[in-house]
């Protein structure tokens, strides 16, 4: 499975990269929204996005754009945002699921395995 992960926090990126290395999944990691836009989304089975990228909430826009361009696969928000309003905004933007930071590694595994099918 090809997974795109957009994350600006190197620690989180590192954690997920290390997990992916232990699995059969192929991970493409980028650290800002513009870089993600330059890629062809359709080649990925699952896209994971940190909503707050470089202190701006570019994630919302990115999810919207993906859906507008007809991307049908799950788009997961991985974010430190936790207020009910913010979670709602995520779903409104087109995210399939919101994984709130901090998360324990089994939660991440669950999400990837559930939505990655």
């Amino acid at each position, binding site marked *: 499975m090809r997974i795109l992960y957009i994350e600006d*926090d190197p*620690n*989180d990126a590192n*954690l997920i990269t*290390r*997990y992916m*290395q*232990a*699995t059969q999944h192929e991970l493409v990691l980028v650290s800002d929204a513009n870089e993600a836009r330059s890629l062809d989304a359709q080649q990925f089975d699952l896209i994971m996005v940190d909503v*707050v990228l470089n202190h701006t909430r570019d994630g919302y826009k990115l999810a919207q754009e993906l*859906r507008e361009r007809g991307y049908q696969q799950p788009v997961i928000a991985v*974010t*430190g*945002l*936790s*207020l*009910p309003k*913010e979670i709602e905004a995520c*779903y409104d933007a*087109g*995210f*399939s*699921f*919101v994984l*709130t*930071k*901090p*998360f*324990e*590694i*089994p939660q*991440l595994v669950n999400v990837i395995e*559930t939505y990655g*099918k």
Partner: protein
Amino acid sequence: MKPLSLFARFQASLQAKLIFAFALVLLIPTAVIVVYMTNIISNTVIEQARSDKFRMAEANAAKLEALLLSAERNTLFLSRAPATRRYVDDLGQNPQTSTDGVYAFLESFLKNSDYRALRILTLEGREVVRLDKRDDLVIIAPASELQTTPTLPYFVQALRLPIGQVYISNLTNESIDGQTPTPIIDYSTALVNSSGVKVGVIALRVNAGPILSAAISSDPSETTFIVNAQDGTYLLHPDQNQSLSRGGGTRTLYQDLIIDSGAILSQLRDEGILFGSTERPELMQTFKHVHPPYQDNLQWVLLYQYPIRKVFEAVTNARLVVIILTLGALLLAVLVAVIFTRTITHPVQMLAHTATEISRGNLTAAIPVVKTHDEINDLAIAFSTMSRELQTLYTDLENRVTERTKELAAANQSLEEARRKTEEVSKAKSIFLSNMSHELRTPLNVVIGYTSSMLTMPQMYNGITLPDIYRQDIQLIKDNGNYLLGLITDILDLSKIEAGKLELRPTVVDLAEIFRGVVSTSLGLLKDKPIQIISEIPNNIPRVWGDPLRVRQIVLNLMSNAVKFTDTGSITLRAELETQCVRVSVTDTGIGIPEKSLATIFDRFQQASADTDKQYGGTGLGLDISKRLSIMHGGDLSVHSEEGRGSSFSFTLPFAPSTVTEPTRNLPEPSSVETLSSADLSVEAIPLILLVEDEVSTREMMRRILESKGYVVTDTHDGAKVMDLAEGILPTLIVLDVHLPNVNGWDLLKSLKANPETASIPVAVCTVETDKDASMRLGATTHIQKPIVLDTFLAEIQNILAFPEKSV
């Protein structure tokens, strides 16, 4: 305008009232005076008439008497005159005494008087001298015509009287040769010679006409009578036939005509007035007796008759004069009143007019000039002052209003600015909270993420399992990370509450649904504690009004506290119906709370005892948050506890608006009292439908028809939440639209059927797609073709609920 009635106009006019009052005040005393005066005048006029008549009668009587006495004096004068005396002396001695001397004297006397005759008689009654006057001519009777009349009264009586007294005869008529009879009176006295011896008589015949005429009243309305009191004959009468003096000659009895003769003729009363006597009520009769001194023979009564009508005419006239004068005075008074009141009412009217003008806003209306120097003038001055003051005030007020308007506008502006600032601050607060939450969570992710990896994912570490010697410490780091996360969540909740940023999203809440989720979670917290969890919810509990998320937060907080502080026994989650609300309580059989700590239990960062923290953990913010959330739901969180016996926390929730009187759950189910333990997770028999449908109108339609049949419906438009919801509430049936935004409905169905907790829940797929077999293959119980026909839809649902075994 309707013309006013006279009365209304009178009422509206001060002047009319004043004049009326003036006239009234004047009229009353005037009327009294008039009545009094007319009475007085009437009496006075009558009195006046009486006394006038009486005085006149007296005067005439005196005149009459004087005339009578004048002749008496002349008789005496003649008897004592020297010529007479000489003749008398001679006569005594010589009967043939020469008469020449005496004739000359007597002739000249008679000639110069209006007496009718003079004669001298001897003691034998023989005339010796006789002179007659006929039409101013004195005729000396020749000796041949001299008569002897010794029996005539004037001869007899003259000799009887004492010397020096004169006899006056009664009135008689002298008729000479068919001429008009002349009333006459004879005066006679004895002639005395030098020796003092009576030698004869001298007699004077007087024409009584002028004497009687003197007594006639000057008032033509008055009738004059002279009556002889001795025999009652009329000596003077307006009717000549009855008057002796007018030559009527007929002696008519006085009594025949004057019935009051008794009173008038009586010698007892010399004079008097009969005013309307019984016999002659129409007359006022004045009488006066005339009797010269020493003349018993002459007893006359002078009588005047005057019609009382005349007197009353005078009275009436006088009264009329009084009344006319009074009316004139009254009229004058009213005129004065009119003029006088006009001087009051006219300025008042002018002032009223000006006041009206001012009240209409014409503040510059001219103040009428009052030319008097009285109270009205004072009023006008005061009014003028007031008007000026008003004008000043008004101007002042206008200025102030303008000023205030400016101030208000400025205030509004600053208020608007303040509001904008507040909004900015509020917005800044929101952003701050949001950022703070995010920034705190990010480093925690490293702590929790990495530690959990190390503990559970050896494959991430080249297959090297964490050595046990590190495991404990890493676990400690992870647990503290989670504790910190809890703390951050609570603090942010509190901050939101205090900043007013925590907004409730109230809706109809099914407590049973909340209870199921919370109980499920609490069972997970029990670990291996031997505790029974009891859920009590009577079937008459209506649905309540609140934010489901926050209600769940409160209940879960209380439950987790109960689990934390209870080692054995039971924890009871209970809903009870109260008059206006539902009370939710969590009662445990745990360690309880010391009495001294009850007061501070809800305070922030307070726990029952200092070492509670160490022993049981927790942030100490949970009860604070729960209490605040309870208050936001219109209730309060309260506690009852007994140390060593357990605690009971409870709060209230209001009824949902439409369900206050009618519990929604009409299904004939027993009260749900469930006893659960960690070993018994699946006892759940409440029919509950989870409705997943993204199109609002369809969803509402479905919800309504299901609720109308008494089913409890939880709905969502969000496919992503379906798994969580299904696990949390374990619905009796799921109605699933497989065309959902963002989520693949078929995948959702697969997940539901793959999850052991939700696999047994029947799913009714509801879709526009016609591929029924695909649904059934994936484990759906039924396939409902869209667009739905409500009857068919309901029938399908009822069928599944009636035969749930079909779905297994």
